């Protein structure tokens, strides 16, 4: 009986002490949220002179398209606006925008100067804080580059809201494919990230494969069958001049090239005598270094952003898997252990993930994993998905998706690293092998 009383007394004291500890603010923890596009209002840009009216309309459309195309934003319809933006420097009626649930407001103006220069300025407002989000900015460019100016504006808006760099002012080099499936003609083409402004870098006289941008975006490596054997060429994008990498031996097959982050070194695969290994080539000295020497197939090398490591695919274990090794070679470390085959690894420009192609159970996937192989996550599933390439900010992947059947055509698709926002990139014809450029200067 005494023990029972002592226990009750102890519990009472404990409860009282706990109640005293709970003094102060109420504390709660929130671990579950929602994932939905942020509602924003991209008000029609104001044309500050009559000649700029058409540009203002087009630029507004591109900015809104860029932002909503990420899947992170939702552009509120203009019909829902309570107040209209008629003056770039006018007061913002925050209550009106809050009433339609806008969380951010983009206001812009376009001027076409007498010397045919476009001046585009914008401001971004945080509706909930009732204050501008960053300073206003103005871009100047030629009338021909109005889309780039619009992409620049969208990049700034994206960056200020999400805290990440944008990727809209970038380009994609890819292989345009025409003709029937069994007599396909291929040529290198380059376009804006959203499929606009397509230009061609090669003709269709020989098969070209796997273009890769240099870190500065002014050169492209690719594989061509121009001589009958696959060989690596380097092409200056601005001058459209190409050169074969001279130090590579004729008669051997060289392919799968990729620049080092400093742009001075290239890693590639070389097949000789039935064996495929990875080599490194110094572009200045033409010095070639063998990095692997296994009897298995090693290919698809890709540098880490700091240039210290290389990820590649190999079947040395009997099955195609991903390995990481030092930039100077040495014993690699296997990082993929799941079922199926892994290939075409690409290191994220942020260095946090490695994207890859995976084939398992008759389907192809684009996936990402941590650089040590953990947290593998498949983002897509299709008849044939392959060849991922990272957006400059490491948030989006573009890849080739080919449909099944005799009429199957390859096309370019993009997907957010979270697996959301799977979209087809518009191209005029069939397209494959995309490679994303860095952000343009």
């Amino acid at each position, binding site marked *: 009986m005494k023990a029972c009383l002592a226990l009750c007394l102890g519990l009472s004291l404990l409860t009282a002490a706990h109640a005293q500890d709970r003094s102060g*603010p*109420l504390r*709660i923890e*929130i*671990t579950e*949220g*929602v*994932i939905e*596009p*942020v509602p924003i209002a991209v008000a029609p840009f104001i044309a500050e002179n009559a000649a700029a009216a058409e540009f203002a309309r087009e630029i507004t459309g591109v900015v809104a398209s860029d932002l909503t195309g990420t899947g992170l934003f939702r552009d509120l319809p203009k019909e829902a606006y309570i107040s209209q933006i008629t003056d770039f420097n006018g007061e913002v009626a925050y209550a009106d925008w809050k009433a339609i649930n806008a*969380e951010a407001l983009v206001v812009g103006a376009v001027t076409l100067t007498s010397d045919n220069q476009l001046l585009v300025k914008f401001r971004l407002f*945080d509706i*909930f804080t009732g204050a501008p989000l960053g300073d206003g900015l103005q871009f100047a460019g030629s009338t021909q580059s109005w889309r780039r100016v619009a992409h620049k504006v969208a990049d700034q808006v994206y960056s200020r809201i999400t*805290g990440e760099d944008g990727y809209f002012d970038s380009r994609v080099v890819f292989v345009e494919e025409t003709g029937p*499936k*069994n*007599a*396909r003609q291929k040529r290198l083409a380059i376009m804006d990230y959203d499929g606009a402004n397509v*230009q*061609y*870098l*090669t*003709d269709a*006289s*020989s*098969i070209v*494969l*796997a273009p890769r941008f240099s870190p500065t975006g002014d050169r492209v490596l690719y*594989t061509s*069958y*121009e001589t*009958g054997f*696959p060989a690596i060429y380097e092409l200056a994008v601005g001058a*459209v001049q*190409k050169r074969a990498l001279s130090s590579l031996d004729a008669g051997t*097959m060289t392919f*799968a090239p990729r620049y080092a982050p400093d742009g001075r070194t290239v890693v590639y695969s070389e097949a000789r005598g039935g064996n495929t290994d990875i080599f490194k080539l110094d572009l200045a000295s033409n010095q070639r270094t063998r990095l692997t020497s296994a009897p298995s*197939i090693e290919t*698809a090398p890709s540098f880490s952003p700091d240039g210290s490591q290389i990820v590649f695919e190999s079947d040395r274990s009997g099955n195609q898997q991903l390995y990481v090794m030092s930039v100077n070679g040495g014993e690699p470390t296997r990082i993929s252990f799941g079922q199926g*085959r892994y*290939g075409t690894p690409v290191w994220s420009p*942020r260095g946090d993930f490695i994207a890859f*192609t995976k084939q398992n159970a008759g389907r192809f*996937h684009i*996936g990402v994993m941590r650089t040590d192989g953990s947290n593998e*996550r498949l983002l*897509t*599933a*299709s*008849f044939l998905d*392959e060849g991922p390439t990272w957006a400059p900010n490491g948030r989006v992947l573009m890849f*080739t998706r080919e*449909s099944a*059947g*005799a*009429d199957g055509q390859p096309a370019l698709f993009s997907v957010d690293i*979270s*697996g*959301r926002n799977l979209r*087809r990139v518009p191209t005029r014809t069939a397209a494959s092998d995309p490679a994303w450029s860095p952000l343009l200067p």
Partner: protein
Amino acid sequence: MQLGWTVSGVGHAVLFLVLLFGGLFRGDRIPEAISVSDVAIISEEEFAALALPGAAPEPQTEAPDVSAPEESEPAPEAPAEDAAPSLPEATEVETPDAPDTPDITVPDPVPDAVVVDQAPPVPVAPSEQDGTSLERDAVAAPAPRVAALPQVAPPPEVETAPDVVPDSAPEPTPEPEPEPEPEEPAAPEAASDRIVTEAEEEQNYAPASSMRPRSRPARPVRQAEPVPEPTPAPTTNTDDAVAAALAESQTQTPAPAPSGPPLTGGEKEGLRVAISRCWNVGSLSTDALGTTVVVAVEMEQNGRPITGSIRLVSSSGGSATGERQAFDAARRAIIRCGTQGFGLPVEKYDQWREIEMTFNPEGMQFR
């Protein structure tokens, strides 16, 4: 006497046991399968008719007429002739013409010097992946990509020659579509509290969405309950000015110990769910998604947050940029869902006059 009773009793017991359980030890206790066949009662005439030897069917000694079909009937053709036209001939590799780009507004920047004005060589089969032989492709089939896995043919390649050739009409082989895909799939814009990738979609048979629990109904507005006033400072019992000032400062502490009954678990959960519904992490950077922020907010008695009082108490796990993004998202959540008030019990206002909310997005990164 007793012995007789005992013997009789044991004997009867054994008898009953044998009768009851004796069948268990019989090997033939499983009944045989009973075959049942239909019978019919027939008359003698019918039986006699059936028994007549002439009624038996005559054995067929001659083979049936298998004469060739008439000319008017089209004979099935060999598949080779039909299948062949779909393959190009190796000799038909034409000299490529200039690229046909009529629809491209941007002029083709390829200079003439780059164009190789001769027939392209027959491409070599892409054996770079397997590193085997260098056989020339007889049908000039396009080489698969270097970056691809050419040794792993895409599963069910349905463009092979058909097994069954149609009778006469040389129609193109119907192409089965193993995986019909939408032309331009796009992520739904509907809000979600989790990310489901395309690779996971097919395994997910759970309902795509469900109703969230409704927020608790607003409580009836009670008559103005006087806000607990601070305890008057003792001013008469002491002449010590320092003690008086100290007592004054103690009575004006911004967060006095809450009085009254504490919030129930359900009330706390209602508040937590209400804020969760407005905490949108979809636009957060990966850095911000790794940042936990503790945000303090002062509340009005009607359950609405005082917007100007929202402040960052602490953060962990991210950079300064991630901290700002995470705090902005938390602040938006509090403001958005606090517009109508959080429906907290007025009589417990002291308990929620100030709230510290920890926004931990760890579980929202990749799920």
